[in-house]
């Protein structure tokens, strides 16, 4: 599929799904993000790494306006979503609309305490979809997409919270996928999982990236290295370096990046 005419092309990244420019974020008085310019390549995996508290999650959560849920937060600058070319943090843009187009998977698997089926169907129900057949079809598709169908197809009605951690996280991915997101945000999706479940999620990310653009925050540099096409390194609320992943890990451009990824941070 040729990319949409309205998607600008970035010299390093190629066609863009989104892009922040001159983006700032404030938690009340706390200036958490400073002047972030970051491209998000279409159908690419972009990872954000950096030390604790550098603002990774803050940046990620800005993409679906999660900060709107809490009082006192303020956005500044632009986060453009393509091909629409809208600045999604503008006042006039409805956060609910943004969230319907940009899915999210969280650090701790957070299935709703409902059945597996209802979890995946949730996004459709929220949209007012009532036709059972449509929902069933979409649920199956999403579960297949999340490589979970075979494991759960015989017990769609059992409680999602009875699944193992790794299955829960894949369910959360299915739940997000069922809503047909254009961009999927992952905030440390495996930090609550054991290594084997982690590998499963990473594998899944590798599979779905052909369908949807992915932005992932991770504490685990190796994870970023393993799953992403591009990596952004943040430090103290600023974007220090953005490079193709392999380059960043073998030959970073900035000393700070190098120090961080080689474990020389003080």
């Amino acid at each position, binding site marked *: 599929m040729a990319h949409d005419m309205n998607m600008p092309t970035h010299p390093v990244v190629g066609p863009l799904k989104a892009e922040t420019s001159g983006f700032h974020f404030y938690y009340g008085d706390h200036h958490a993000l400073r002047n972030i310019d970051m491209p998000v390549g279409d159908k690419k995996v972009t990872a954000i790494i950096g030390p604790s508290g550098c603002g990774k999650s803050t940046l990620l959560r800005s993409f679906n306006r999660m900060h709107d849920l809490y009082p006192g937060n303020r956005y500044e600058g632009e986060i453009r979503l393509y091909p*629409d070319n809208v600045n999604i943090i503008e006042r006039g843009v*409805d956060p*609910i*609309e943004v969230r*319907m*187009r940009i899915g999210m998977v969280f650090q701790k698997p957070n299935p709703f305490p409902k059945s597996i089926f209802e979890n995946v169907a949730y996004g459709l129900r*929220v*949209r*007012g979809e009532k036709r059972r057949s449509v929902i069933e079809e979409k649920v199956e598709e999403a579960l297949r997409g999340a490589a979970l169908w075979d494991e759960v197809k015989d017990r769609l009605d059992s409680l999602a919270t009875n699944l193992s951690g790794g299955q829960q996280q894949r369910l959360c991915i299915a739940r997000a996928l069922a809503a047909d997101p*254009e961009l999927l945000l992952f905030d440390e999706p495996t930090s609550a999982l054991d290594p084997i479940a982690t590998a499963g999620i990473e594998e899944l990310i590798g599979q779905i990236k052909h369908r949807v653009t992915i932005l992932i925050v991770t504490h685990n540099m190796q994870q970023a290295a393993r799953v992403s096409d591009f990596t952004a390194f943040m430090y103290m609320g600023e974007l220090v370096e953005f490079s193709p992943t392999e380059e960043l890990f073998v030959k970073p451009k900035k000393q700070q990046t190098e120090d961080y990824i080689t474990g020389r941070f003080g």
Partner: protein
Amino acid sequence: MQAAELQTLRQQIAWRKRYDIWFGILGLLATMVGVLTLVALFVDLIMDGYGRLSWQFLTSFPSRRASEAGILSAWVGTALVMLVTAAAAIPLGVAAAVYLEEYAPRNWITDIIEINVTNLAGVPSIIYGLLALGLFVYLLDFGQSILSAGLTLALLILPVIIVATREALRAIPIGIREAAYALGASKWQVVSHHLLPYSSGGILTGIIIGMARAIGETAPVITIGALTFIAFLPPLPFTTDPATGATVGPFEWLFAPFTVLPIQMFNWVSRPQAAFLENAAATGIVIIIATLAMNGIAIWLRYRIRKTIKW
């Protein structure tokens, strides 16, 4: 996304958001039911009883003349009863909770105790009155004393304290216990050095809430046969009794006759003279202010301790 799709999407969001507004209004209204009732009650009481609220009211004994009557014996009685209640319910409740939460083996005895405690919390207060009448007043022969009333209310709030203490204990992460055990602490050391200090906030809150409830309780105290007219205070320990000249023992006050605020109020309510209704209202205000103060202290404590203890 296509413009047409976007259009339907937006319509559908707008539709869904309407529920938010409706529910917000509904919620506010529902909240106001409670708040307005309270305000109405309080305002009504104040309008009726404000005129009687004075120093004189607090320092006088009851009287047949409404304007001279006061609640001295009632509030002193309430205070002393609460003292007994606290002294009985706190150690018992906390110890029971500690046993159930930290010591109890998982067997049928524990199960029985557990179910019992939950059940006690639901037993109507009037039943405690019946129990107390049989147990304290007659069987143990404490008579209609401060001790009987205090113990009765102690039983009433025992489940409240047990439940609150258990919840506070349960809120302490297992990691804290394991850390202490891993350093070689014995079970009692773990309990006394860690669990009780760290749960003190929750325990205190539970105690205060329980006591606030006990202050307003009428039924059980009525059942044990409360007095109504008392124009003297219980003897202070170690003072000399003016009548007999004997020195008062330290626990004599426990067996003294008494009355409490809600009874005084209840009594006044059913008097024919309208002036007594004012007194009743004023007493109501005093009770509400007392519970208000206790709740305030509970909130403050919760806040204070939440600030220092985090995991």
